[in-house]
């Protein structure tokens, strides 16, 4: 494993050329992103959105309606009325989640509101179905306060087996997730916190192993103290990371217990406040450079500001540092730049570089697992179980500096993660369905595999129209 690390470092000595290549990559990615955007609008118009509901039962003739609907269905309702948990067996509730957003922090677009968030939630629903075999319903809601959001979700809960909160601004997202997890008897997840944190931790576990480090002994810097890194910090501490070797850094510098804004945080962002007290800056105060001096790990998940991390920052880190630059679309530092400055392992949020820290590696499998276990909630132990299994998944194919996480092309990992999640729910005593590991695995494989077959079958039969080609003028330009 150290061999592959060394191999990946070898060709990276000529730093200047690489830095130039990085800015070229930035320009390339910009024009590619523009083209993808135009194409997405065209196709969204052509297909009129991305998802639809499809009956899953035969309709041999209209007479069957008396089974699927009135009068037959009344008996199904009576049964559920007598025993509400039967809703998980007699309806699709067991496999249906709501994707709830208030549109307050959509991608990097900010507070664009619920309607504009709809295409993103549709896309998420597509990923849920395709990757996880989960029926997901986009539910962007117009609400005036976190309380209203929570009472709305509570009111919606009877229709769903789980709730995926999406693109809700920090810090209100923390309180909303905590409170809804308490109030609801179905699993609640906020992907911007937990999905990103789980993928990050999975990648870190392998990166640490590759560089002969342990969580306990590492000095880690988290740049950005939003949804993802607050959750990542919590998970790292749960894994035994020494709080005094963990520094959170935001645009005001290292978050320590005596920073001038700490009382304001106590009122406005108690989650960040608690980390300020617990880590106390990892024993440091000052700016990012002060935090990174001698650090083993940097996880940057900040508001996208290209150049937020500079090569000299990486050079000041410990030998063979680990650098995760997760801002999208432009990472805080380009991978080539980071490697030229000595980074042994680099990860980003992008699919066009190796080591993509990608929520899609996590949320479909986590929901597959908690839905199959019919879990009551998703405690951090489950998030960590998913992260560990994801890390093992990458390990099975062989770890290297360029392979610390499975890619989306390694779908065999996802049912394993789902099964690990199901096992964890059983172990924690929050599973209503206590299946064995093999049962969870088999079920996940079947349900996750079915969606891809379904999509292919629809395309083959012509029920899904073939994708129209881009206008030829643009094809030449691109």
């Amino acid at each position, binding site marked *: 494993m150290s061999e592959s690390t060394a191999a990946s470092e070898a060709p990276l000595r000529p730093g200047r050329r690489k830095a130039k290549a990085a800015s070229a990559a930035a320009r390339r990615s910009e024009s590619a992103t523009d083209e993808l955007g135009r194409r997405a609008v065209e196709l969204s118009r052509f297909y009129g959105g991305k998802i639809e509901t499809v009956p899953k039962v035969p309709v041999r003739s209209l007479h069957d309606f008396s089974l699927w609907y009135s009068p037959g269905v009344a008996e199904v309702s009576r049964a559920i009325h007598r025993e509400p948990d039967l809703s998980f067996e007699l309806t699709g509730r067991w496999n249906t989640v709501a994707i709830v957003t208030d549109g307050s922090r959509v991608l990097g677009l900010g507070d664009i509101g619920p309607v504009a968030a709809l295409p993103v939630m549709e896309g998420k629903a597509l990923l849920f179905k395709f990757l996880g075999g989960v029926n997901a319903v986009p539910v962007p809601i117009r609400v005036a306060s976190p309380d209203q959001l929570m009472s709305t979700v509570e009111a919606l809960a009877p229709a769903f087996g789980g709730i995926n909160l999406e693109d809700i601004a920090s810090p209100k997202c923390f309180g909303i997730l905590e409170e809804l997890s308490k109030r609801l008897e179905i699993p609640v997840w906020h992907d911007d916190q937990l999905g990103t944190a789980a993928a990050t931790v999975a990648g870190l576990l392998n990166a640490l192993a590759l560089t002969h480090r342990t969580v306990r002994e590492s000095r880690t810097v988290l740049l950005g103290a939003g949804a993802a890194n607050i959750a990542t910090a919590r998970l790292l501490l749960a894994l035994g990371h020494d709080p005094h070797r963990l520094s959170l850094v935001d645009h005001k510098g290292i978050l320590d*217990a*005596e920073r*001038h804004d*700490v*009382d*304001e945080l*106590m*009122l*406005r962002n108690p989650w960040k*406040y608690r980390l*300020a*007290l617990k880590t*106390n800056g990892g024993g440091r105060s000052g700016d990012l450079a002060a935090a990174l001096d001698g650090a083993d790990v940097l996880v940057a998940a900040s508001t996208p500001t290209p150049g937020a991390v500079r090569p000299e920052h990486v050079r000041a880190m410990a030998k063979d540092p680990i650098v995760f630059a997760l801002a999208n679309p432009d990472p805080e530092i380009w991978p080539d730049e980071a490697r030229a400055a000595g980074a042994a392992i680099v990860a980003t949020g992008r699919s066009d570089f190796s080591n993509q820290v990608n929520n899609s590696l996590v949320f479909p499998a986590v929901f597959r697992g908690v839905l199959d276990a019919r879990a009551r909630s998703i405690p951090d132990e489950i998030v960590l179980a998913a992260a560990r299994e994801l890390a093992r998944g990458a390990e099975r194919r062989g770890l290297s500096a360029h392979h610390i996480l499975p890619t989306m092309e390694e779908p065999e990992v996802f049912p394993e993660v789902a099964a690990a999640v199901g096992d964890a729910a059983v172990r924690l005593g929050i599973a209503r369905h206590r299946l064995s590991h093999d049962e969870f695995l088999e079920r996940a494989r079947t349900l996750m595999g079915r969606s891809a077959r379904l999509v292919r079958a629809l395309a083959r039969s012509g029920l899904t129209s073939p994708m129209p080609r881009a206008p030829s003028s643009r094809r030449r330009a691109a």
Partner: protein
Amino acid sequence: MTPDESAAAPDATPAKPPTAPIHLRPAREADIPTIVPLLLRLKRLNEEFDPLLKVREDAEAQARQVLRQQIADPKAVVLAAEGIGPDIGKVVGYVRAIVRERPFYAPDFEGVILDIYLLPLYRRRGVGEFLLQEVSAALKAKGAGIVTAEFPAQNEIAGRFYTKRGFRPVTAIQARSL
């Protein structure tokens, strides 16, 4: 009573008996440079609760002057909390209170807690409880028959701190801009 004369209670839980990881003593003139930043932190926290508690541009100079005067004033109590262990000798919190006459009510004198501030790492360790007991005793020794505390009406943390310890709202102060 001005907005400046407000106290926010630290986020503390009762501990009995108080086992405060601090050393409490009367503040001296030499403490002023270390107490001023703490006082300003408290006033800026108060500002978070209400725009009518906006901290003045010259608050720092004011703080120095008020502290100098009250440290010398026999009718005022200013206590400095020093840390222990690695923070030994460092002022990590303070209390400021005055004795005020009540011309129409009995008892004749009230001890008014204006400020209690503790750095975050010293909160939730019973220190606030200890400070309250100590300042109450000092005010009683100066003739106060009751003890009151002033803090922003919206500061629920302070409100809970005091009501848990037997305080209740007595006088309400409402404000509007002119």
